């Protein structure tokens, strides 16, 4: 009985060591490229999106005299989000498409800010169609980025 217990314990130790080695090997490929694994990307991107969405919610709903500042701040937040998510090293088509969507949004937001500075608010609205076309929420869903797919809703 004692011998059987010792054998079982040895097996368990071996299994644990084996699992650790396998896990270590599995993560090596992504890490060596500096990008992290898919799960690293998801958790990192989710955290970045939660932070960005929180900051966007905190901007509130601007009154007309605050629209320029609101657009400038949003542009900065999306640019930062793009940098953070791109640095996580997306792998696979869905993750890459999400990062590309963020990159595409930045020049549109720049154009919207510029149009607002010129007080051309029709152009701001029309340019926003470019953001709608990106369908960033859908891209986030495809990449299994739940927080990134959420629309930040301001209470004020």
């Amino acid at each position, binding site marked *: 009985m004692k011998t059987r217990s010792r054998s079982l314990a040895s097996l368990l130790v071996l299994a644990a060591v084996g699992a650790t080695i396998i896990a270590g090997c599995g993560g090596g490929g992504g890490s060596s490229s500096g990008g992290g694994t898919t799960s690293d990307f998801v958790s990192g991107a989710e955290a970045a*999106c939660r932070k*960005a*969405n929180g900051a*966007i*919610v905190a*901007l509130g*709903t*601007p*009154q*007309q*005299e605050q*629209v320029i500042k*609101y*657009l400038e701040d*949003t542009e900065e937040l*999306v640019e930062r*989000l793009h940098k953070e998510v791109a640095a996580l090293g997306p792998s696979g088509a869905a993750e890459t498409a999400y990062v590309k969507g963020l990159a595409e*949004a930045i020049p549109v*937001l720049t*154009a*919207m800010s*510029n*149009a607002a500075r*010129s*007080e*051309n*608010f*029709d*152009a*701001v*609205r*029309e*340019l*926003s*169609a470019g*953001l*709608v076309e*990106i*369908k*960033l*929420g*859908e*891209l*986030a869903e495809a990449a299994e980025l739940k927080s*990134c*797919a*959420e*629309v*930040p*809703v*301001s209470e004020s």
Partner: protein
Amino acid sequence: MRRLKLILVLGGVLALLASVGVAWATTGATTGYPQPPNNVPVQKQAPFENRYVLTAVGSGASIRSGEMKFEFEEGSSPQFLVGISQFYSYGPTGEIETGLFTFYPPKALPNGKGLGFTALKVGASAQYGQVTPDGELQLFTPEGGTVKGQLRLHGGGPWPVEFKVLADDERYTASPPAAKQIHEAEPNNPGWGGEASEYEGEYELTNGGSDPTEKAGTLGAVIGVAQGLGVNGAVVSEGSMTVEGNPAVATVKLETGGTERTFTLTKLAWQGDQRVAQVHNEGPSSPPVGHFEGTGGQGEVRGTLISGHSVYKVDFKLKR
């Protein structure tokens, strides 16, 4: 093809900006406007080829003063007129704002009454400027040095307008003199109907559109804000209105994208089927930021709610 037309029109606008009266040089070509689909005989257009100053305008247009110029498109065959105007308007907080419009294409009004043009709004910056249809200008047959007509802009009007033809050497170094404000008969009966029971209660929005932010993720908020800007009216996805109190006050909740906005309407007034009110952003005692104009009756109110730079087209129906 549409893009080509837009480029052509933008080219024409820039050329016109360089050529319009008073504030700019008075000579220069107007090029780039495509040949209009319907031809108006040159002899009907020719009397309108002039520079003008606005001398009277309906007070509802909130236009203080303005200048305008019509000239034949260079090289056009058959010839057609293109116009440009610079209007100085009273902004929602009382400041003077400048609005540029071009008028194209010309069309003959019924019974030889004059000419009509689509009013195209020109952006403040050429780089980001968009030429967007924003109303209509009708000019009636000139009488001496005066041209009367009517103007529709931003979904409002028509407002009466009167222009004086400027002599070749007549120039303004700054903005032109204030035009006479023509006070139209505006609704002045309190409330939105003869009996409070006709209009008090809870309303539902019946013209809600699809939500453009639905699949936009993090970008949803900024899309929601942007969709509420401009003169053509935002896509309102959801909304409600409650009318109560004496004097009656309406609380309007509108959702554009993921953004919900609450407006308070005071000074509700009616005349026939006209319905008007003053719009506030932060409760009835906050400064007015715009106005509501529309029609109503039999449990329905529909119209345009203007709050600063935002315009919302709304149709409400009273819940019974």
